[in-house]
């Protein structure tokens, strides 16, 4: 999708404005703390309907205002290819508003409120790259689970529902464990936990498996030869190699066409059996510890580098979180975002709208050059990037139109370099 028009009202420090965006994108140039990141946050808000920085909705309302409202007009861009037999891409409007009193949040697509906000996720098809992404590699596993949850909620039908159900059942089961409830009272939650958890496990595993080759090649290209390894480590013991192991290739590859519900239920079944069996075996340990010790809430996916030569290295390569340099971690984080963009492309049949927030700031010159080359070739769609100085805008051979931002006020009409 291409973002044609963005209307901003009462959002952070940004001045109210209606902006027409060029189909190829735009480079927003301005000093720090002028609102560059807020601008990208506003666009991405319409993709995930929450702040990409984890800020509470009401805190996004500009000081002294009662509400904020964002509206995007999106539609086929110059680069959109009509899908054979698919829907012709058409123009749509996506809007979100939050009112301080209440607070009330309202999301609309083409003027209509969807039954659940979750139903409107992913309309923009945007992927945001920020310097903070390095935390995906450097921080604890919950950061990576959060990343997976957002990517899959937006791009895999049925994932968000399964995840929410899983969390609800897990909270109940943990409450029973905490209360030292009798065995049968705890076990009553297990079929539900295994049922919802099976789908979460399956979809996460499929995504990682499908993305591993891309991850490897992106890391290789950006780093100039290092081979990246992306590996899924389910929070359920057993796993690959276990009887009826669901991790065999071909079992529900992602993100090919999603199976219908009946088919999905039968693909989930071996995962559910596996998880249910592990819950049975772990029940006494769970009861002793007063909490559920296994399950997708303990999932991890690791990023590593394959060592040169015959070095014995742990499965999954040398863990970047522990052993990676700053540059290696940033490269891995970037590769994850490129994977996300690839997911959007496969799911939507259209290139993702790339939002690049000063991404080259912390990469060394060699890596930056290679990232530029990579993005230039893979990002066929619209790009909105920010940079503190004109000299930092090197994307697409400086052809992107320039906008300036100062004190939250955006000046359009600048010339490309």
């Amino acid at each position, binding site marked *: 999708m291409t973002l044609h028009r963005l209307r901003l009202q009462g959002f952070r420090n940004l001045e109210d404005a209606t902006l027409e965006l060029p189909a190829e994108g735009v480079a927003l140039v301005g000093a720090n703390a002028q609102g560059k990141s807020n601008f990208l946050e506003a666009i991405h808000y319409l993709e995930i309907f929450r702040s990409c920085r984890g800020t509470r909705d009401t805190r996004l309302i500009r000081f002294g205002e009662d509400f904020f409202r964002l509206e995007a007009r999106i539609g086929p861009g110059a680069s959109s290819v009509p899908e054979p037999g698919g829907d012709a891409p058409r123009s749509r409007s996506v809007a979100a508003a939050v009112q301080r009193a209440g607070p009330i949040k309202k999301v609309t697509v083409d003027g209509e409120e969807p039954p659940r906000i979750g139903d409107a996720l992913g309309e923009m098809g945007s992927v945001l790259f920020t310097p903070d992404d390095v935390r995906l590699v450097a921080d604890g596993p919950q950061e990576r689970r959060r990343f997976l949850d957002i990517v899959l909620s937006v791009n895999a039908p049925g994932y968000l529902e399964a995840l929410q159900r899983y969390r609800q059942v897990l909270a*109940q089961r943990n409450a029973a464990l905490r209360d030292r409830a009798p065995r049968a*009272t705890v076990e009553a939650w297990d079929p539900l936990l295994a049922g919802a958890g099976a789908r979460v496990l399956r979809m996460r595993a499929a995504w990682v498996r499908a993305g591993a080759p891309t991850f490897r090649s992106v890391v290789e290209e950006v780093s100039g030869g290092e081979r990246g390894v992306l590996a899924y480590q389910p929070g359920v013991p057993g796993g690959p190699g276990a009887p009826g192991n669901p991790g065999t290739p071909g079992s529900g590859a992602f993100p090919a066409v999603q199976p219908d519900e009946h088919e999905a239920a039968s693909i989930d079944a071996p995962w559910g059996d596996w998880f249910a069996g592990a819950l049975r075996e772990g029940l006494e340990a769970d009861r002793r510890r007063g909490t559920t010790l296994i399950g997708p809430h303990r999932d991890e996916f690791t990023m590593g580098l394959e060592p040169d030569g015959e070095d014995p290295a742990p499965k999954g390569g040398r863990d970047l979180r522990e052993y990676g340099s700053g540059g290696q971690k940033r490269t891995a984080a970037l590769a994850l975002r490129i994977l996300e963009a690839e997911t959007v492309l496969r799911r939507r049949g259209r290139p993702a709208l790339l939002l690049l927030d000063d991404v080259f700031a912390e990469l060394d010159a060699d890596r930056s050059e290679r990232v530029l080359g990579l993005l230039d070739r893979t990002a066929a769609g619209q790009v909105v990037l920010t940079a503190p100085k004109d000299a930092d805008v090197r994307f697409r051979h400086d052809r992107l139109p320039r906008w300036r931002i100062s004190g939250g006020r955006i000046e359009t009409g600048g010339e490309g370099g």
Partner: protein
Amino acid sequence: MSALDELVREFGRLPGVGPRTATRLVYHLLRGRREDAHRLAGAIEALLERVRPCSRCGTFAEADLCEVCRDPSRERSLVCVVEGAFEVQSIEKTRRYRGLYHVLGGRLSPLDGVGPDDLAVAALAERIESGQEGIVEVILATSPSVEGEATAVYLEGVLRPLGVRVTRLARGIPVGSDLEYVDGSTLAEALAGRREVRAETPAQAVGADHEDMLLRE
């Protein structure tokens, strides 16, 4: 607090009644005939005085046993387990069910501190074990929420060893609704539980002997 405000507050605590409606109701009572208000007060008094849980199934009754439990034409081998007495009334309105009931008084929810001991589970097991009613099948009609499902799983574990057949209400698309307006997860359930167009009824499919009783019109 004035008597007027107090009644507004009491009405306001009823389900579905907001402060505006509560105020309107109170002014309506004040404006109307005094005997109407007395009759309302009397009806509430009588309700509290006369209505209590049925000693067998737990639904509301004006005698030791409720009307359903007293009705000799009801099928005694069939018990439908519901979360609350309100659901009994809903199922009765269908006039399609001829068995008896058992009211749990809630559903499992450890987060709210509700465990099996807070529900009428022991009483249900007792009804089955005593053999007085000759219960053969228990229909679990708890709600299809996460908590209702877990309650059903729990009950199944308790009841199956007692040698009764345990069944669960089917889930799917509401009769007379338009597919377009059915939410995704209901549609998904309905797809997963689809059946042949002109085959046996689902009750027969699982080998029910009670089909004629269930479907008697």
